[in-house]
């Protein structure tokens, strides 16, 4: 075995994040202010620089592999990293005031977010089962801690416990599956696994490994029937953590899927397709039907996440590059919508009061018509009404399904989308139609208002001009 010097420059985003984790850790120690100002701004700056580095190193370059085949640099990695870091910036920006009001404003929160980002970056560029797993665990461990961040909250502790146990279980499943794939192919490298899968030897063992790996992925996504943890964790975690947990890691889960099951086991598509159909339809059904009866907004958003995951899986089912691009577009637009929705919950909450019931949205139009408008855009986008980015997300997925001849699945999907529209409208009913006797005007810090405006604006602008984002997603998938 001849030793080859890895091209460190290719891993610049990860190296940058790794270094900055240490810097933030130390800088926070010397920060005397009570609000961890240094950690916050340093983290945001780090993430913004990381976006730049990711685009600079990965976007538009020839797919290349280094670190003995374990690290891949391609446009897909650029898009995934850009998205997770961008979503992290938004959700961390939202959460600052929330954390301050609850005396949770500690540097560790940002440090954990940064480490979670490092994990997600690693996953996005992983070209070996081991690297993939390391990235995944790095992400998961940070998230467990973030969910448990409010030590004094019983609900939070319970959520963290649930999340940890089920998360560990799913990681175990995935590791088990990976070991079988390794056994069948004799390699940990995704490219060699793909080559082995193409030859058609040891397919039975490979198939078993694939099944367990897919279960692990489904757990991380929260696809039904592996969705049980989502509502409890979303509800129990501090909203700041929920916002983080509900956005970027979903994109990372897509990275996991694309690297493992598409890059590695793409030739077994025929085998995992049927399972993915079950996951998709199950998620659509369970997510939409259970969301209908929720009165807690955070739980409703949790179930709606499950239904969105179902839609995202529909894009993966098609098994075409167009379908994967549609799923990527869906993940990005969902991330934007979800960060906005949790951001609104954070905005409406204040010390000692969690605006987590749908009823808490009542009369928002009278209290602040701008926020009401953003909520309107968010909800219509989630329901998939044109004029918002959510429509194109759904359209692209349906397009890829119909192109591959699965019209029936498209019909099932839109029927559930109509059911889904009902509960989004219920939120808008509270916002616009329910009037308060004495509406208290809503105040919010400048920074948060700016993020809300950008978030709502992104939904509208991408809803009118989706062309560029569609192109980016298609380029990332090599179209």
């Amino acid at each position, binding site marked *: 075995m001849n030793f080859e010097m890895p091209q460190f420059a290719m891993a610049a985003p990860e190296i940058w994040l790794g270094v900055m984790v240490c810097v933030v850790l130390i800088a926070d120690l010397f920060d005397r202010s009570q609000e961890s100002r240094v950690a916050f701004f340093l983290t945001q700056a780090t993430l913004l620089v990381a976006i730049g580095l990711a685009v600079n190193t990965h976007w538009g370059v020839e797919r290349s592999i280094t670190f003995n085949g374990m690290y891949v640099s391609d446009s897909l990695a650029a898009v995934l990293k850009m998205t997770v870091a961008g979503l992290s910036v938004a959700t961390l920006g939202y959460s600052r005031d929330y954390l301050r009001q609850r005396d949770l404003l500690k540097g560790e929160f940002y440090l954990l977010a940064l480490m979670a980002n490092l994990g997600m970056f690693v996953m996005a560029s992983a070209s070996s089962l081991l690297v993939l797993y390391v990235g995944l665990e790095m992400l998961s461990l940070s998230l467990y801690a973030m969910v448990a961040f409010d030590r004094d909250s019983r609900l939070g502790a319970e959520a963290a416990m649930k999340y940890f146990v089920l998360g560990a279980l799913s990681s175990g499943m995935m590791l088990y599956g990976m070991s079988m794939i390794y056994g069948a192919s004799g390699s940990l490298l995704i490219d060699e696994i793909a080559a082995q899968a193409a030859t058609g030897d040891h397919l039975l063992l490979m198939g078993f490994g694939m099944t367990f790996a897919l279960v692990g992925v489904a757990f991380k996504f929260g696809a039904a029937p592996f969705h049980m943890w989502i509502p409890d964790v979303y509800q129990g975690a501090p909203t700041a953590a929920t916002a983080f947990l509900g956005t970027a890691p979903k994109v990372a889960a897509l990275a996991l899927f694309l690297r493992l099951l598409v890059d590695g086991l793409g030739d077994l598509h025929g085998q995992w397709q049927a399972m993915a159909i079950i996951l998709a339809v199950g998620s659509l059904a369970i997510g939409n039907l259970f969301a209908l009866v929720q009165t807690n907004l955070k739980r409703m958003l949790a179930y709606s996440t499950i239904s969105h995951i179902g839609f995202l899986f529909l894009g993966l089912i098609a098994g075409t590059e167009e379908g994967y691009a549609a799923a990527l577009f869906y993940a990005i637009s969902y991330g934007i919508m979800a960060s906005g929705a949790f951001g609104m919950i954070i905005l409406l909450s204040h010390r000692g009061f969690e605006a987590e019931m749908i009823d808490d949205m009542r009369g928002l*139009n009278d209290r602040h*018509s701008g926020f009401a408008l953003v909520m*309107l855009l968010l909800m*219509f986008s989630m329901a998939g*009404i*044109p*004029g918002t980015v959510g*429509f*194109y997300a759904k*359209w692209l997925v*349906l*397009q890829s399904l*119909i*192109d591959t001849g699965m*019209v029936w699945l*498209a*019909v099932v999907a*839109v*029927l559930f*989308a*109509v059911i889904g*529209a*009902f509960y989004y*409208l219920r939120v*808008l*009913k509270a916002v*616009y*139609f329910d009037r308060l006797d004495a509406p208290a005007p809503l105040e919010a810090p400048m920074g948060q208002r700016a993020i809300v405006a950008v978030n709502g604006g992104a939904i509208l602008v991408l809803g009118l001009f*989706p*062309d560029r984002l*569609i*192109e980016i997603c*298609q380029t990332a998938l090599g179209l």
Partner: protein
Amino acid sequence: MLGGWPLLSLLIWLPIVGGVGVLLAGRDNADRARWSALAVSALTLLLGVALWFGFEVGVAGMQFVERASWIQAFGVEYYLGVDGISMPLVVLTAFSTLLVVVAAWDVVRYKPAQYLAAFLIMEGIMIGVFSALDAILFYVFFEAMLIPMFLIIGIWGGPNRIYATLKFFLYTFLGSVMMLIALIYLRTEAGSFAIPDLYGLALPFTTQVLVFLAFLAAFAVKVPMFPVHTWLPDAHVEAPTGGSVILAAITLKIGGYGFLRFSLPIVPEASMALDWLLISLSLIAVVYIGLVAMVQEDLKKLIAYSSIAHMGFVTLAFFLIFRIVAASGSRDAALLALEGGLVQMISHGFVSAAMFLCVGVLYDRMHTRRIADYGGVANRMPVFAGLFVFFAMANAGLPGTSGFVGEFMVILASFQAGFWYAAIAGLTLILGAAYSLWMIKRVVYGEVRNAEVDKLRDVNPRERLLLGSLVVVVLLFGLYPAPLINVMAPSLDALFGIVVPTP
């Protein structure tokens, strides 16, 4: 294009951008909101008039075409144009919105800026629906319409508004997502989303039927046809006056327009094979819904059911053409039916708008819509009574009004399909006269029934202007419909050539 101006884009975006402007300008100042909304809607109507006079009569194809790439990855275009079918509807939209803005003047007191902005944005979207020539662009406008209407009914509606607005939204949403699937499927066949490219596709018959049913789901709900009509009375009763006007005058027409633009030319064989279904449903709408209208105790419900019956008459005309051709072989008779249906759509736009405005006038004064609460209104509001009676007559198809022209043309044409079609269709005149006159008798004439009615004051100058302008239009098209028919005839002729190719 007219003199280098992208007229259709202006017609779409001026009200939308203007609506946002009204929202910002009038947040704290109701008067500023009213005047700016009036300016925007008047300007839009002026553009609509320019469209009408710039339109070249006698040309069948699309005019004022604008075409630009929009979503390159899927070949979706920003592709606009109007022909003789859509141009009158665009002008009707601009006209109705101006009426709504004037009608809301000092009546809407809760958040007037938001109210007016919602209608202006709605106007731009609806003009977009009528002028879109790309299927996805059409769909985007078609669906986006739901957003302002949802808010209009939900925020400014009556006591049961939440039920009504959710029902309205979910019914129409369910219908249209089916159409989205059909459109995506058609693109895989045609390779393009441009609507003209979808015409004349050689689809297998079963596929045609499925596509037809998908379109039917979308347009039948919008029209609305029996038995998916139940959202309409609820929506009308709860909607504010302006919402009812726009619903009746424009959005119902979008269903009929969809049949002409999509169902008939894209899947003609399925349309022909399933014409019995559409004809039966339309006849049920004419007769059964006409009877239902008669027993209503709520003014708005009565007019809502009357709208359903009238729109049933329109869909009857559109789908009777196959029977007419089969029975008589006469192309002219079939064209007469199409023209009659379209004239009826336009006329119903004016007349139903007027009826809802009249009810709005009464409601503003008495805050009730129950017919039983009125009686003897003519004694206190003679001018209003005259106008109301006139519009009720137009609704019943009195000769000399625009309502008569369309009905007459359709009934004349339907004789060519068979006596019984004409006989049942003719019932619409009798039933229409029955419920309209009975309503008039109970509301307008007789002794002054109670103290509330006794205190009524007659229409003010603003309301006079509003209703008077509608009288002019209704009489104009009733006495001299030729300009309207000349505009639409060539386009309908071309459409007919696609739907029923000459052997």
